[in-house]
């Protein structure tokens, strides 16, 4: 019987949109290994992609050669299993307050990423990182386990 994954995978990428599909593939696979449904895996994948896109667009203002560290970690919090995605950049720190998701009734392009992450993830936390930049931590838990009849 295969065991659940326990150790984190780390990735070091550049702030280029070219690397986004590679991170998405890794996040999706980790979700699958942890037992996330395809629908839920899609939400985690989208949320981490939105966060990475924001780092590229805002923290690094479109520069494509800056570093981003990604950690994809299984978590076991209070009996529930889940996934934690940690993103570290070396751009300007902007607090969570500054990232208001806009009024959705006002239909216009942009301003949807933060809203998506808030809706789809269970935890979303922006902190100034030691040595500069931002540490973003996102957690998604698996739904409560149902009783398993062997």
């Amino acid at each position: 019987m295969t065991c659940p994954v326990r150790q984190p995978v780390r990735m070091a990428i550049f702030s280029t949109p070219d690397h986004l599909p590679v991170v998405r593939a890794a996040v999706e696979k980790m979700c699958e290994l942890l037992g996330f449904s395809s629908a839920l895996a899609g939400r985690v994948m989208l949320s981490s992609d939105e966060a990475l896109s924001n780092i590229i667009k805002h923290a690094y203002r479109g520069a494509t050669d800056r570093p981003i560290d990604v950690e994809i970690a299984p978590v076991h919090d209070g009996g529930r299993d889940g996934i934690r995605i940690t993103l570290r950049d070396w751009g300007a720190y902007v607090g969570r307050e500054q990232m208001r998701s806009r009024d959705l009734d006002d239909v216009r392009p942009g301003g949807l990423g933060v809203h998506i992450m808030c809706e789809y993830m269970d935890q979303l936390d922006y902190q100034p990182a030691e040595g500069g930049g931002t540490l973003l931590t996102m957690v998604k838990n698996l739904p409560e386990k149902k009783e398993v009849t062997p």
Partner: protein
Amino acid sequence: MTPPTPDGPASDIRRQGDAVIIAVQGDIDLRRSVEFQQEVLTVLDERPARVVVDLTAVPYMDSSGVASLVKVLSRARRQGAKMVLCGLNDRVRGLFEITRLDNVFTIAATCEEALG
């Protein structure tokens, strides 16, 4: 002119009656959304009565893809063209729901219906 890159876009454009159908292929993310938007805007330049954006071969879309479609929609409305989306997989449909744009766009249940 630079040759298309291996992973370049492969939107397929065909005409049927008064409609132009643009079938997009591949993920629409930050890497691809600007170019995707340009593709659909170019189609709108022909001033068709209807534009059908077929997303059957789009496994993944992010908010930048949605933003591109919002821009395209407002241009379509300005010039009086009808715009319909079809072929959304469950994840892409979910994205329109979470951004509450599922009622702003016309999303057809099937691509046949979109053309009907």
